[in-house]
């Protein structure tokens, strides 16, 4: 047993005035009797004056001394040392990722409830010189309290913990703890988690880390992926990936696709423990859809957040492609592809914006297009970096993994335009302008790309007509890749469910105020950027988010879609960047036990006994 406030022992000096006042101020009830003769004889008897009788005679004093001793001991704040390493300052990182909402049984407690319970026990056991700092983390981390010994504040923070429907990551929480250590040093960090964390963390541990694992949850089945791919016809092929834990008791599950309350499709699937069934549906794509996939199981399901997912499918339409008449090779290649409207065209007015544009003149580079491909000239912003010389050259390297150059082979292709990088400039200068080289010649980049918000710019610094490329199969493939890029940019080729985290929703006016209403109570207002994209919208909850700006509104469904969270798998060890592995502990370590309240309570009981003793002494 140790004492937190040993200096309070001076209070034992109060025994002296207590004894003095006891004998000076002892008020005894007076009782007049005929004669003291017999009582004097009694009091003079040797038996009355034995040490034991003296003790009994001064029982009230002894009770008061005992009471004082208890109070002074309580003031010295004793505690039982049960924790091998007692931390005066302890940051506690509480996992609030989606898996923490998993229940242990039907109608049971969630992992966060267990964490709350352990936190409350730790707060109750806090000694006066100890301070806790609560940090909640999921994909990001937020500090709930600073280092404080205020139990009320800590308990309020614990009560306010809510689960974010996002995967858990430890890195940011540890970085936040590290930042805290600069102002308030500490040696240990405690992590309360269900263990559903990445097995590796990109963090070098400057402190001791205690990973305390909360007991595992029950069986779970959920949707881990929801996406769609455009078929050759005007249909969407929707894929739903399910996953279930090895201990599941459910035998069947029903997946239902609903749009605005109207069922679109439904399928029942047999569930085997540990499997990951995949379902496919076909939906017509004439109109935009916000499809809600809902999973219902026949048995217990620990996590509810992964039983629903949304998928936004735009209406299918032909792509508007601008190709000047002079680019006949491109027109020829595009004519072989379906679902395109090529402009300029006879009898069809040209639209103001295009999905894909091929330009060969610098003045056409300002055309409003989702994907713009310039050919044969150097864009204005690159003229200081590169120039085109009229001489033959060949590609020496290209990015085969880029979607734009997928299946495009540039070997043995001759180019009569040779881009030459300005002397003194290198690839870094292009990267500083946001450009990425797709293909490189011996003297400079042959093709560059740059993403400008929602738009993509591709610059071919050679003219295909002055190369052997049109005579190669690579050319139509390149054109097809550009068409697919345009389709992807417009969401017309494939679509995936929006996971929880941060939203990025295009389609608003530039710098428009966007009001966001989510599944959680309350609304917030964000401002769209110059491209009309509302970015940085936090979406930590699964559900539908409504974004409105004036009369324009966008509805977005946000889903968990995390195989890791759905699996509820718990790591036994987390590997850190400095090759330190921290094992998770399955039991809560014993905390130091404060005894002051026990002593104070004993003192109170003693006070009651003394009061009773004082009150009962009636003659």
């Amino acid at each position, binding site marked *: 047993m140790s004492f937190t406030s040993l200096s309070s022992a001076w209070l034992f000096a109060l025994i002296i005035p207590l004894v003095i006042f006891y004998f000076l101020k002892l008020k005894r*009830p007076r009782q007049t*009797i005929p004669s003291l003769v017999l009582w004097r004889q009694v009091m003079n*008897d040797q038996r009355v004056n034995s040490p034991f009788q003296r003790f009994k005679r001064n029982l009230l004093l002894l009770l008061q001394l005992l009471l004082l001793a208890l109070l002074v001991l309580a003031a010295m704040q004793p505690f039982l040392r049960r924790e091998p390493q007692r931390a005066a300052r302890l940051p506690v990182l509480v996992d609030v990722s989606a898996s923490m909402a998993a229940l242990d049984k039907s109608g049971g407690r969630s992992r966060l409830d267990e964490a709350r319970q352990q936190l409350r026990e730790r707060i109750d056991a806090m000694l006066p010189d100890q301070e806790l700092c609560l940090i909640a983390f999921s994909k990001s981390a937020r500090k709930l309290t600073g280092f404080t010994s205020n139990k009320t504040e800590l308990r309020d923070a614990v009560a306010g913990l809510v689960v974010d429907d996002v995967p858990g990551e430890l890195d940011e929480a540890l970085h936040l703890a590290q930042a805290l250590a600069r102002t308030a040093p500490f040696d240990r960090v405690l992590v309360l988690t269900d263990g559903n964390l990445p097995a590796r963390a990109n963090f070098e541990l400057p402190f001791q880390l205690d990973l305390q694992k909360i007991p595992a949850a029950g069986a779970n089945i959920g949707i881990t992926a929801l996406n769609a791919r455009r078929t050759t016809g005007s249909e969407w092929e929707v894929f739903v990936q399910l996953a279930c834990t090895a201990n599941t008791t459910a035998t069947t599950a029903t997946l239902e696709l609903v749009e605005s309350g109207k069922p679109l499709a439904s399928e029942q699937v047999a569930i085997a423990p540990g499997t990951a069934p995949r379902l496919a549906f076909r939906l017509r794509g004439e109109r935009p859809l916000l499809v809600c996939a809902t999973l219902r199981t026949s048995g217990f399901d620990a996590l509810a957040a992964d039983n629903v997912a949304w998928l936004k499918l735009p209406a299918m339409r032909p792509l508007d492609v601008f190709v000047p008449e002079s680019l006949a090779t491109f027109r020829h290649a595009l004519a072989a592809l379906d679902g395109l409207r090529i402009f300029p065209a006879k009898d069809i007015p040209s639209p103001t914006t295009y999905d894909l544009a091929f330009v060969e003149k610098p003045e056409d580079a300002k055309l409003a297009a989702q994907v713009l491909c310039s050919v044969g000239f150097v864009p204005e912003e690159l003229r200081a970096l590169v120039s085109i010389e009229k001489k033959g050259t060949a590609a020496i390297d290209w990015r085969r993994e880029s979607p734009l150059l997928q299946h495009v082979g540039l070997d043995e292709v001759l180019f009569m335009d040779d881009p030459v990088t300005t002397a003194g400039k290198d690839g870094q200068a292009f990267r500083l302008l946001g450009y990425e080289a797709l293909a490189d010649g011996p003297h400079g980049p042959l093709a560059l790309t740059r993403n400008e918000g929602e738009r993509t710019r591709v610059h071919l610094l050679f003219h295909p007509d002055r190369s052997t490329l049109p005579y190669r199969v690579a050319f139509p493939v390149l054109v097809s890749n550009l068409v697919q890029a345009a389709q992807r940019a417009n969401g017309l080729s494939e679509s995936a469910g929006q996971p929880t985290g941060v939203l990025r929703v295009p389609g608003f006016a530039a710098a428009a105020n966007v009001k966001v209403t989510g599944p959680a109570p309350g609304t917030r207002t964000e401002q769209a950027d110059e491209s009309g994209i509302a970015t940085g919208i936090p979406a930590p909850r699964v559900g539908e988010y409504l974004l409105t700006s004036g009369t324009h509104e966008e509805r977005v469904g946000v889903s968990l879609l995390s195989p890791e969270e759905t699996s509820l798998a718990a790591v036994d060890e987390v590997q850190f960047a400095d090759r330190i592995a921290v094992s998770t502990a399955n039991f809560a370590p014993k905390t130091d036990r404060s005894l002051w309240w026990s002593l104070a309570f004993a003192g109170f009981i003693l006070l009651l006994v003394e009061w009773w003793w004082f009150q009962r002494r009636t003659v």
Partner: protein
Amino acid sequence: MTAAQVTSLLTNRDLDRLARLRLNASRRFTNRARGEHLAAKGGTSTEFCDTRDYSPGDDVRYLDWNAFARINRPYLKQYHQEEELHVALLVDASSSMMFEGKFDLARKLAAAFGMLGLRGSEKVSACSLQNASPARLAPCSGRASAAKLFAFLESLEPGGEQPVEVGIETFLRQHKGRGVVVLISDFLTTGDLRRAFNLLHGAGLEPFALQILAPSELAPEVSGDFRLVDSESAATLDISSANDLLTLYHEYRTSLEQQIATLAQQRSGRALTISAAEPFERLFFETLRRKGWVA
């Protein structure tokens, strides 16, 4: 007191019952004056006592001529001497007797014993034991003195701090006459009771000691801590855990009772400890009669 009652101390019924009782003194300390009590020595009454050898000078009128005629030796017939018995009533009227009816019972007992004396044609005197100048009732006799006795006892006011042994000494300075002293007190004194009893015995008084204790003295109901105050001296005594001391208290109280009984019996007297809560009728007409104090 109703109009028909003679005294507030005793009911008329008690007075009637007293008329049938006599004080039963074990030793015959009597006055020379003629009375109804038979003296130990031979006397001139009509009640035959014994015979003895004739000595020259004896009154020949008391010769037993029948015996002389039969055996031709002179014997003298002796008769009981009927002498007067002095009944002294000593009533402790100190402050310690003011509790729980002790003094009232003492006055009733004194009145009863006094009435026995007056009805027996004895001299009865009374004295209170309370201070240096106690109230006294001069010796009186005859039933006509009953009113005087009752008036005296009724007029007694308790209060005073004189110990009982000092009161006895004060009383004996002015007392004359042998007989019985009815000493009614609680005997709660630190003084020397042996000396007081010796003085009484030396004065020819057979002690009838009645110790009256209040119920709270016989069985104190005390516990915890308190401060006791002496009713006479106002002295204080702090007691803690009194309930634990009760055993000792009873030991000392019993010891005092035995001491009084021993002191009285050694001087041919009687002693009895009674509770102030005990009804007078049962005490006097049953207890004292059964114990042979009255007959």
